[in-house]
């Protein structure tokens, strides 16, 4: 992820230089200056959509709606109420941001093509409202919008070119800041694996809403400049075709980051002008182009020039081994209490009225045949999915119905049966992501790159490296997770889960797929964590491992707890022997 952003940051000065050179040479040609201005205006909205689509993996075919809100705000306030441009634009951007929050909230309910349809209808509704509203001039829109002014300078013609590009490059810079900060890391985890992100403590819902609001704000800003530059706004100008144009720019230039959006907007800006005489052919060509890009070059223009980051294994890497900090666990109440936990899927009862309480600093194993409901029980504890009945208390707090990231923030770590790493991130970035919940910076701080950020980022990196060192993983810190063999994936996931020093750790089948020496290593790792004071709950099929390390063993069969006690007792329990180990003979 960092590698991608570094390439993006390197491309930005080159693009800025092109903008300046073009501005200086195209000064005498009004058509070129105008095309360049439109490119800048589109670029602002495209940057927002690029972040939404490429960094957070949320589609929107309604960005023209936000653009329209910005444009109509300026149009109405400057003509009907005679406001100057700047406060009118501010109102427009704020209005678009607020609506963006609303759309983001709605978007949480939808995925993929449903979201595409929902945002498309949002765009249509906005256009419909402008079209029907007499306040905004109905079908004929609002005309004679004055130019924006900077002191005595009217921002029209050639001046508008510099003004629009100034804003566009500023937006690019701020967005890059955002993506390089904690917010960018959070986005990247959501893009890779939303569920895993939530469970390790990333407030995924909040970040998704924020991304929509941010993209809405930029589209709104783009609309305000458009209205003042053109002097006229009609409903058709902010319709579905514009939304699709924005999508086209982002896909064509390359989604994610800012450079692709700038390139895409510039391409479309100029194709729009040069293809003016062949309107239908131009649009058909756009359609063909976008299909070809999706099929043949999914990274867009920027993807063609960007080298794919390579994994590096550094055998000589040494981080001084620091002793692991002691685990600080809340005292008083039991770490985890399950009361009558019940989970049904349709007619199937996966977990049926399960009760247990874990003792502080103990290692408890949960065993049972496949389909017994073990992972479902883990999900119930972590807040993944709604409980049918029952309640979960963690350190005396009733967390039933909490979102996973809030439960994680209490100090609860978890790994998954199939090792859900963030594949497009390096091992170090994965582990740093595990620390997000203890980082308190806000997206606004990211946006303006507040001074404290560098230090907090360095601290997070050091802490993640120390965790890797303790597990002997420092040589693979710069490897991409997608390139790791399975055994290492498991250990990296464990590192990510314990990076923030949780006091309650849920581990789902950590030994599955490991060879003998890796299993021995796992045995030692788990005992070391218990020795640090962590309370562990383990799902495992490897009976040798379970019997060797557990203080207590619970047995689940078809969702019902059929045995619970110390390993020796459970091993000899006739019900367990027949249900789980199989009846002899």
């Amino acid at each position, binding site marked *: 992820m960092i590698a991608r952003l570094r390439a993006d940051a390197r491309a930005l000065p080159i693009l800025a230089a092109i903008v300046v050179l073009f501005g200086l040479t195209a000064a005498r040609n009004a058509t070129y200056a105008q095309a360049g201005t439109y490119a800048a205006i589109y670029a602002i909205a495209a940057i927002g959509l690029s972040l939404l*689509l490429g960094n957070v*993996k949320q*589609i929107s*075919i309604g960005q023209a709606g936000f653009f329209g809100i910005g444009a109509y705000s300026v149009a109405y306030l400057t003509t009907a109420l005679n406001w100057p441009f700047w406060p009118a634009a501010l109102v427009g951007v704020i209005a678009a941001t607020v609506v963006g929050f609303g759309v983001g909230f*709605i978007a949480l*309910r*939808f995925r*993929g*093509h*449903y979201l*595409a*349809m*929902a945002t*498309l*209808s*949002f765009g*249509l*509704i906005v256009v*419909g*409202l402008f*079209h*029907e509203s007499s306040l905004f001039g109905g079908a004929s829109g609002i005309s004679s919008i004055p130019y924006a002014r900077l002191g005595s300078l009217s921002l029209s013609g050639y001046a508008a070119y510099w003004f629009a590009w100034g804003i566009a490059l500023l937006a690019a810079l701020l967005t890059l800041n955002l993506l390089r900060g904690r917010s960018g890391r959070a986005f990247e985890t959501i893009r890779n694996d939303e569920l895993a992100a939530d469970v390790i403590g990333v407030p995924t819902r909040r970040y998704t809403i924020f991304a929509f609001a941010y993209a809405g704000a930029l589209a709104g800003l783009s609309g305000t400049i458009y209205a003042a530059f053109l002097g006229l706004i009609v409903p058709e100008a902010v319709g*579905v075709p514009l939304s*699709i144009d924005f*999508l086209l720019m982002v*896909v064509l230039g390359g989604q994610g980051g800012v450079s692709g959006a700038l390139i895409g907007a510039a391409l479309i800006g100029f194709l729009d002008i040069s293809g003016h005489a062949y*309107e*239908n*052919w*131009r*649009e*058909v060509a*756009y*359609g*063909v*182009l*976008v*299909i070809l890009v*999706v*099929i043949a070059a*999914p990274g867009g223009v920027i993807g063609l020039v960007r080298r794919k980051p390579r994994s590096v294994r550094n055998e000589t890497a040494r981080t001084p081994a620091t002793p692991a900090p002691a685990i600080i666990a809340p005292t008083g109440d039991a770490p985890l209490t399950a009361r009558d936990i019940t989970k049904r*899927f*349709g*007619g*199937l009862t996966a977990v049926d009225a399960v009760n247990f309480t874990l003792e502080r600093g103990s290692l408890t194993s949960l065993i049972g045949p496949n389909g017994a409901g073990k992972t479902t029980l883990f999900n119930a504890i972590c807040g993944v*999915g*709604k409980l049918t009945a029952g309640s979960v208390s963690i350190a005396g707090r009733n967390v039933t119905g909490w979102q996973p990231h809030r439960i994680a923030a209490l100090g609860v770590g978890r790994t998954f049966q199939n090792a859900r790493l963030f594949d497009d991130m390096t091992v170090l970035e994965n582990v740093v992501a595990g620390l997000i919940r203890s980082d308190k910076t806000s997206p606004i701080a990211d946006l303006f790159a507040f001074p404290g950020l560098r230090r907090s980022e360095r601290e997070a990196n050091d802490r993640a490296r120390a965790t890797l060192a303790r597990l002997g993983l420092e040589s693979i810190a710069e490897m991409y997770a997608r390139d790791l063999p399975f055994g290492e994936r498991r250990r990296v996931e464990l590192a990510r889960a314990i990076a923030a020093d949780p006091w309650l750790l849920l581990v789902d089948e950590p030994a599955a797929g490991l060879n003998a020496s890796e299993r021995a290593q796992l045995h030692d790792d788990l005992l070391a964590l218990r020795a640090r004071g962590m309370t562990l709950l383990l799902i495992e099929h490897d009976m040798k491992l379970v019997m060797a390390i557990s203080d207590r063993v619970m047995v689940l069969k078809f969702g019902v707890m059929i045995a619970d006690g110390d390993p020796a007792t459970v091993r000899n329990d006739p019900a367990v022997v027949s249900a789980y180990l199989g009846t002899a003979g």
Partner: protein
Amino acid sequence: MLQLLVAGLTVGSGYALVALGIHIILRATRIVNFAQGEFVIVGGLFALTFVQLFHANAWLALAGATVLGFLLGIVYERLILRPAARFGEISLTIATIGTVFVLLYGHALVPGWGSLPQPLPAFTGEASDALNIGGVSIQYQSIWVLALLLAALAAMYLFFERTYYGKAIRAAANNPLGARLVGIDITTARAISVGIAIGLAAFGGAIIGPITLVGGAGGVAISIKGFVGAIVGGLESPVGCVVGGLLVGVLEKLLQGQFSYGVADPLIYSLLLVGLAVRPQGIFGAKSAVRD
């Protein structure tokens, strides 16, 4: 009132066929085809071309448009949907939107089609010929539309429920791996599913064409209204899709009768958001038993 109801059911037939097509493609390929409405427009234009070729044999035109739609669907699946499927749902969605652009602006470039809507002759008599029952006038073409919709639905039912190929296609959609294991060619099954869906869209365009005119830029609206119908009725239920599509048609005419044309559409689109948020499985869809 009754007049509006009949008019609503007539346009609703088009939405119902779009909704059913969206359902079939979704089942077979797990994607929502945003271009479905554009294929209705293209289907109507196919019929127009056949009418011009054969001098007003509407039945031949209808059959020709449907067959061409089916073939176009096969090509669409092979050239666009299948290659884009490798890159996930968002890429597929974008590819279908690209297709919207190609068809929306491309059809205007075809000689004889143009960008403006054109009349298509009615199946019997003139398009304006109507039956008068107690003060309510019903266009003959409306009766044809509803009868042909029912015929198409019956044909779909028989194909998917009663024939070997239909069952094989359903099996391939329900459980691709299992279907492959019992020897069903799922790649072909997918292509045929898309072909059938696009054939239905073209059929819809050809039967409602005499009433609504053919061609023009209305495809996006048809797609979304079809999708609204599918959501309202239940995207996973073919019956729900048809009923939902008809409901949207009736609602559209009632709202247009009550308010202005411009207000009706945004209200229908709002219904999509409300429907998705409140009851995503639709009226006829069962609550899913899969894990969340």
